[in-house]
């Protein structure tokens, strides 16, 4: 190729590479550095803003690696684990789960772990996002009344569990010493309307579920993996009622969901929602369109979904007895306009007799005959009888006698037989107010039965008009159709 073209191509390639470097944000990897190392920290040191669950610190708007100072205090606190039940939690930042830490990939994190002098136990911290011995645990073993410091570079983006790793590790974790650290990718995360922090844990007490009073940790139950409580965010009811997570119809919600364990794997599901995207295991790749995702003990995931209709969305561990019998239940309350096309709510509540229903063979036969144009009055009567039972008979009785002073009779009813069109209209649209039937006055309400199809209605009327001493013409589906079309249904009735 000639010189001009090659020069042009070279220029093109160079600018493309430069653009790529620029797009990766300030501090693209220095030559020879390991993956994730975006160079030395720049600018003034930043004091990380930590948040209590379920809140998440705001997204990072920074395009260079910085020195971030994290100060995390350990407190041993007595709190309610369930109403009327207290437990001694060992916590990072005073809460279970502990404070949420948010940094950017490539940041240099100077980590200060403080063990309050009033605490009983020594503690340390293992952050799964740390590359180094013990995840920091080897360098942070801290007695009460002391502070440890160590520094690490966040080489990998992702959502990472942190937890105490002091012997016996299972007990420290079971007492609530876990939390999440988010390492944002250099380009940041897509904006959403809400970000929330939810973390599941299993708890082991000497007493039974909801047994009141102060409960102590039961090591044997923990070894046997028989939790008393399985909870989101450290207490039953932490995220229900007035503490429920909030969103509006149309919002995009992102949940950072961790699982501190110590033992159980979570089958995380939000009742009523489907996750549009799941960064399963908190890794780089996403799965889309997920109903329930597994979150391992000592792991985390990021799930996102759109709120499309209002209501209460229930977060559960779908190992479902944990949700209903051990407390693994949280609520996201969504407000906003309804969308009946997506979700209608209950439309019909009708009687269903199951096997006790009259033989429906007659109905099937009538349908088939109608389709082939051979429907006879006898078939209609038989089919109508099937449908009458359990629907009309509830008020008018199986013998058509009705209930004196309450429901008018159909048997030998002058009111019924005089006007066929009127009868069709009444069954379709209901009737309220005074009627005189066979000389007796009735003043009651008949609800519309317009949910019945034209053929069903025709068969019922044919049956009624030819039973218990009544004798009259059949009613055809077309006749019903015409009356349906020419009259208006009352408010709330079906079509």
């Amino acid at each position, binding site marked *: 190729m000639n010189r001009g073209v090659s020069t042009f191509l070279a220029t093109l390639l160079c600018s493309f590479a430069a653009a790529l470097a620029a797009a990766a944000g300030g501090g693209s990897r220095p030559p020879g550095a390991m993956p994730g190392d975006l160079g030395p920290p720049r600018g003034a040191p930043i004091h990380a803003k930590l948040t209590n669950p379920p809140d998440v610190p705001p997204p990072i708007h920074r395009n260079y690696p910085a020195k971030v100072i994290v100060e995390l205090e350990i407190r*041993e*606190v*007595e709190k309610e684990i369930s109403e009327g039940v207290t*437990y*001694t939690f060992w916590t990072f930042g005073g809460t279970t789960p502990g404070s949420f830490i948010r940094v950017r990939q490539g940041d240099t994190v100077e980590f200060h772990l403080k063990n309050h*002098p*009033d*605490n*009983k*136990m*020594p503690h*340390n911290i*293992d952050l799964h996002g740390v590359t180094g*011995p*013990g995840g920091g*645990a*080897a360098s942070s*073993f*801290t*007695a*009460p*009344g*002391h502070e440890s410091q160590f520094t690490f570079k966040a080489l990998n983006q992702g959502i990472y569990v942190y937890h105490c*790793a*002091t*012997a*016996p*590790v299972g*007990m420290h974790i079971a*007492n609530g010493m876990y939390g999440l650290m988010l390492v944002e990718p250099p380009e940041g995360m897509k904006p959403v309307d809400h970000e929330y922090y939810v973390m599941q844990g299993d708890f082991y007490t*000497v007493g039974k579920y909801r047994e009141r009073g*102060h409960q*102590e*940790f*039961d*090591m*044997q139950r923990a070894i046997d993996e028989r939790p008393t409580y399985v909870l989101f965010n450290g207490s039953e009811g932490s995220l229900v009622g007035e503490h429920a997570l909030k969103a509006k119809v149309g919002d995009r919600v992102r949940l950072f969901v961790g699982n501190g364990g110590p033992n159980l794997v979570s089958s995380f599901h939000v009742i009523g929602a489907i996750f549009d995207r799941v960064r399963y295991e908190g890794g780089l790749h996403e799965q889309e369109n997920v109903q329930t995702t597994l979150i391992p003990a000592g792991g985390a995931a990021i799930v996102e979904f759109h709120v499309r209709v209002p209501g209460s969305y229930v977060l559960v561990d779908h190992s479902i007895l944990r949700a209903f019998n051990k407390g693994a239940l949280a609520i996201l309350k969504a407000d906003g306009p309804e969308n009946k096309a997506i979700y209608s709510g209950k439309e019909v509540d009708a009687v269903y007799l199951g096997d006790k229903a009259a033989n429906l063979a007659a109905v099937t036969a009538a349908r088939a005959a109608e389709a082939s144009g051979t429907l006879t009055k006898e078939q209609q009567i038989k089919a109508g009888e099937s449908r009458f039972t359990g629907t009309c008979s509830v008020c008018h009785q199986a013998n058509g006698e009705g209930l004196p002073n309450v429901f008018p009779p159909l048997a030998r009813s002058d009111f019924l037989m005089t006007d066929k069109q009127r009868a069709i209209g009444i069954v379709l649209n209901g009737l309220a107010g005074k009627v005189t039937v066979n000389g007796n006055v009735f003043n009651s309400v008949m609800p519309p039965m317009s949910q019945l199809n034209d053929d069903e209605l025709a068969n019922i009327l044919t049956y009624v008009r030819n039973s218990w001493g009544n004798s009259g013409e059949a009613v055809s589906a077309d006749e019903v159709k015409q009356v349906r079309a020419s009259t208006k249904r009352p408010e709330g009735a079906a079509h």
Partner: protein
Amino acid sequence: MVALLACTGAAGTAASPEDNPFLPVAGAELRSALPRDKHDTVPVRSFLLQSHPVTNQEFLAFVRTHPQWRRGAVPLALAGADYLGAWSGPLDPGPGATASQPVTRVSWFAADAYCEALHARLPDWYEWELAAAASAQRRDARADPVWRQQVLDWYSRPAGKMLPTVQQGSANFYGLYDLHGLVWEWVNDFNSLLPADADPEKFCGSGALTLQQKENYAVLMRIAMLGSLRATDTGHLVGFRCARDAGALP
């Protein structure tokens, strides 16, 4: 025995030797949580151990006669800044540190000096572990899950504002009180419990594999706690009691 029936002195009176007597603990081959070399057991010689942790009243008597160990006089190299921090004054425990509460916020150096003044010493870890393995009925109750859970329960309770006084519970087989459930206690060899070349990650999961007595989590936590301390530390919940060799003069 008179020693077993000894009770703590009334508040305000000077502490006397009968208040916290040295009681005999028979020697044994101890199946320790910390294995030494490759042996299953560790030989522990008979020794004497004080009945309960040293109280504020007892320590007050010590600093009265040993002014160099009063708060404010002790160099930081021997006791941290919070030395006797619960006391109102160098010679005044005050309402925050009652006579019969165990003395805490004392460094290892201070505890060691106190015991020396009594012609005694701090117990070794193995001695302490042997004495603490006993319940009221048995020399070695460590295989009893009920006893283990009782001991573990202390860790489940928060530290609380007011430290209980000594001898609230019942004495164990040797007549000793409060080896569990009150305060952490200094031992002579607290910082060499693990071999010098021990993996500093000892207490990150894998470390527990080399320890014996894995079911006895209370002991593991005590080892962890002692391993986290430095000799100048004045922990809020760290106290001590003294020991003597068997046959030593009182």
